């Protein structure tokens, strides 16, 4: 068994994100462990629960959530990258928290932790 850390930097509107998910699923199905998926750059948009995906297309947010539930792999979000792209966990009255369940709000420090604990780092 090998331990991986994954970094996802592409948004749900990019098919590359589907590649990242499938790679993650294959890692787990092959018996490997993932310290966490770290969403950075436009990757953070995957956690926006206001994104409306047409019902006949793959909803990557739900798919990541399902992946988290099935495998227990943590999904981390860089809060600085997220805030500037319209995501918030704020409980202020004029803001509506829109980070989807199963995603954990973190900072870049988490990137350091996830990657330093892994045997292999794959950026997708």
């Amino acid at each position, binding site marked *: 068994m090998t331990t991986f850390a994954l970094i996802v930097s592409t948004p749900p509107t990019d098919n590359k994100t589907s590649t990242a998910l499938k790679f993650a699923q294959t890692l787990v199905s092959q018996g490997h462990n993932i310290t966490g998926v770290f969403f950075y*750059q436009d990757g953070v948009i995957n956690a926006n629960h206001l994104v409306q995906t047409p019902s006949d297309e793959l909803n990557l947010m739900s798919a990541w959530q399902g992946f988290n539930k099935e495998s227990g792999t943590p999904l981390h979000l860089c809060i600085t990258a997220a805030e500037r792209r319209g995501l918030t966990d704020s409980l202020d009255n004029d803001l509506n928290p829109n980070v989807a369940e199963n995603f954990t709000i973190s900072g870049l420090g988490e990137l350091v932790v996830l990657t*330093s604990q892994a045997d292999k*780092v794959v950026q997708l």
Partner: protein
Amino acid sequence: MSHRVKSYAIINTSASFDSLKGKESLDAALILASYEMPVSLFFIGDGVYQTINAQSAETIQAKDYIATFKALGFYDIEDIYVCNDSLDARNIATTSVLADAQCCDKHLIKSKLEHCDVVLTF
């Protein structure tokens, strides 16, 4: 599960104001360094445009993260490599905003990358 200090290489291939790549790459480098991870920076392809002196981000209402390059020493980021071949191809003289930057050819970059544990590209 191994748990140890890893060495990180960050490769910049994007021009200064190409989306937020340069800025978010720098943020990642600063955090890694703040956690006392050895970090080296590489500028290749259009990434070499980030290293040019006297850019003025304010002119186009962009964040001047280029100014932060001058503070990399305070973060102990001193292994900085700028690709000569990429500079030449773009007709750029080797005046760098990065005090510690070394201009080197792609063969040296290749051998430096070989010895890093984790390589991230932006």
